């Protein structure tokens, strides 16, 4: 048996009253690709942080090549051969691709930065993942998928013995999967061990040699992938897979949202209309274009020409969209959705604060009751309405954001990546909320990198290609053909 390279023994970590990791034994062998899977709040990210020196355990020890170690910082962990690609990539937007890749491991030991050598190194690393990029280009201008690539190149630039990938598909979905597969193939020969954290059971079978299931901060299963099945893993999530929601979309035939001659950064002069009661999936290759189009409808992107109207009223910016009954669930929870330091109450009720206010004074008791009801209906897990949202798990944060758009009676909801980065149970819950809202006659436009989700939630598909609408057809026609 190959020796263990990195392991934990009875490691515990608590944050305030929350036990993130409890008495965890975990062991990774040399050259192994290990998937770590588990529901939201199972302690996956905390384990990654412990192994990368971002935080230290309260109890227990971490062993590296059979010796107990204490990682004082990520820099310390890096110097001992651990590297991590964090979920948010942690790149310096104002620096170039080459500078980012060589940031922590410059091409030469001297203090003088050798830009030619750095560029060469960057090109070689990008090449090993079959991609060419302008190494002098600023990282901030790259699309998300290339940012992820740069983050991965930076991590493997130090030639680590252990590479930790923290939910690489949570931002870009299936798009990242191909990249990760290439990465795993490229690292296989160098005997690099990989820890692959994910929500997706399917990815475990595509990528990993072995799998650890974490539940409530402890490892409940460690198994070779070959000797387990998707169903065998699913039971740890306490919920079955996706089902077609109870309430199907009902196309009323009445145009509600009308788009005329719209030109944005990603589409040229397109026109279409969405009928009341429709649930339209917006898809594109790459996914970013679909997200951008939906954002543009809401008036949330710069330099847009054309007309977007609902009942004849123009939508020009978020405020006018909201005033006309159109809401947007943003894709990037942290940057565009949550008010981190504010409580659940404020985050849920924000759009209702103005209603019926006199001289600015809110009708607080009514707002509180409404928020309490939503928290109950959506089964948002929180200690109280005053708990700050940044201390909630990802799934609960997402439900808080959905609740925000349910506080008022919105006619159209634009959903961007509605279930990215949340586990199966959370996903099922979000889908059932969407289904209920549909029962109430709401119209949806949904952009998601999860095609299965779109096929379950939508009755029509609008696909973009080369800055134009390629097709606008029923979901059955679109997804049916893809399967064939």
């Amino acid at each position, binding site marked *: 048996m190959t020796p263990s390279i990195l392991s934990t023994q009875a490691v515990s970590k608590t*944050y*305030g009253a*929350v036990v*993130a990791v409890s008495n965890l034994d975990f062991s990774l062998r040399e050259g192994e690709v290990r998937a770590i899977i588990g529901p939201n709040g199972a302690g996956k*990210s*905390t384990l990654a*942080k412990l192994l990368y020196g971002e*935080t230290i355990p309260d109890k227990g020890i971490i062993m590296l090549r059979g010796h107990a170690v204490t990682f004082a910082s990520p820099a310390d962990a890096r110097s001992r051969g651990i590297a991590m690609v964090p979920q948010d990539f942690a790149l310096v937007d104002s620096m170039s691709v080459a500078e980012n890749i060589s940031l922590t491991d410059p091409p030469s030991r001297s203090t003088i930065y050798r830009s030619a050598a750095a560029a060469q190194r960057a090109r070689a690393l990008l090449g090993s993942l079959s991609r060419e990029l302008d190494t002098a280009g600023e990282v901030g201008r790259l699309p998300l998928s290339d940012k992820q690539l740069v983050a991965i190149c930076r991590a493997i630039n130090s030639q680590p013995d252990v590479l930790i990938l923290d939910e690489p598909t949570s931002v870009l979905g299936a798009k990242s999967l191909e990249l990760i597969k290439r990465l795993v193939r490229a690292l296989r020969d160098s005997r690099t061990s990989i820890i692959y954290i994910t929500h997706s059971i399917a990815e475990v079978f595509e990528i990993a040699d072995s799998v650890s299931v974490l539940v409530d901060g402890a490892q409940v299963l460690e198994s070779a992938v070959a000797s387990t099945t998707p169903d065998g893993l699913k039971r740890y999530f306490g919920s079955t897979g996706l089902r077609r929601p109870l309430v199907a979309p009902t196309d009323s035939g009445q145009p509600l949202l009308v788009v005329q001659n719209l030109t944005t950064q990603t589409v040229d002069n397109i026109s279409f209309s969405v009928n009341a009661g429709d649930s339209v999936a917006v898809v594109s290759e790459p996914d970013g274009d679909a997200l951008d189009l939906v954002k543009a409808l*809401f008036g*949330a992107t710069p330099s847009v020409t054309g007309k977007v109207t609902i009942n004849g009223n123009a939508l020009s910016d*978020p*405020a006018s*969209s*909201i*005033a006309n009954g159109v809401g*947007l669930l*943003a894709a990037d929870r942290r*940057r*565009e*959705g*949550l*008010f*981190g*330091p*504010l409580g659940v109450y*404020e985050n849920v009720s*924000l*759009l209702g*604060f*103005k209603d019926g*206010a006199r*001289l*600015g*004074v*809110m009708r*607080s008791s009514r707002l509180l009751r409404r928020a309490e009801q939503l928290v109950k209906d959506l089964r948002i897990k929180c200690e109280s309405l005053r708990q*700050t949202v*940044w*201390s909630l798990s990802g799934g609960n944060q997402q439900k808080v954001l959905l609740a*925000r758009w349910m506080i008022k009676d919105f006619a159209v909801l634009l959903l961007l990546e509605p279930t990215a980065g949340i586990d199966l149970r959370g996903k099922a819950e979000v889908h059932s909320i969407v289904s209920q809202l549909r029962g109430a006659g709401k119209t949806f436009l949904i952009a998601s990198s999860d095609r299965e989700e779109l096929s379950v939630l939508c009755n029509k598909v609008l696909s973009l290609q080369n800055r134009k609408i390629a097709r606008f057809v029923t979901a059955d026609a679109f997804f049916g053909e893809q399967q064939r």
Partner: protein
Amino acid sequence: MKLVREYGLVAVLGALIGAFGLLSPVFLTAENLLNIVDQVAIIGFVALGMTVVILTGGIDLSVGSTVAFTGIIFAESLVRGFGLSASMLLCVASGLVVGALNGFLIAHVGLPAFIVTLGTMGAARGASLYITDGRAVSGLPASVGGLASTDIAGLSLPAALFLCLTLLTWAVLKFTYWGKFIYAIGGNERAAWLSGIAVERYKMMVYVAAGFGCAVSGAILVSKLNSAQPQAGNMYELNAIAAVVLGGASLAGGRGDATGTFLGVMILGVLQNGFSLLNVSSYYQQMMLGAILIAAVYADKKSLRGALDD
């Protein structure tokens, strides 16, 4: 969490009052305690304005200069015979103008608050010196001097006004949607905009409020000194920011409130008063103030670490 912080501040304030009471026989007299509230009011008005600015994630470095500038406008108007009410109006208007200028450049033009208010800090000071030719404005009507010592239910006018404005700020932040939107903008400006909040208008509003606080402070200061000094309000930005941060506000925005700022102002005032009674040099006091500001930010960072980690 918030409760712990507020009880903590009250405990610190109580401990300081107790300690100074033991060290100085004069400290715990009713007269001296009322005197403290009267003394802190001038920083208090500025700190309340600073609170709403910091809640949006902004900063206002121009407050000290604005106190001087509005004071000069007040005194000059009086000297030129505008009468008390008209002069007060002009004083307040000048504060609102400086605040609106800051707000316009920050909210509508999109310049960084730090740079804009650093600029107006210099400009307002320069204007004060230019108008007065660097000299104090004196020879004010007797009614002005009486203003600051007017008795309102046992409190001096400045003290009573400070309590009222604290209450008003607290109520606006807690019970109105304006307050909630200010927190939301500080909590996540982009999300606030995506939620349809008129971000620019609210950011404008907080700097205008800060300008108002400065004008009140400027007028009271003139009344107390019976003259206007172009060098007045020196280092008020440091005092006000220290009080706000001590009161539990986060410089990143979205956290803090008026009661915290009130307690922060009181703690600084008690320290200053107590040290003065004990004959501690004012130079030494200023060093202490700097240290307290840094310590308060450190305590804030410590208490947040757990929340930010995950």
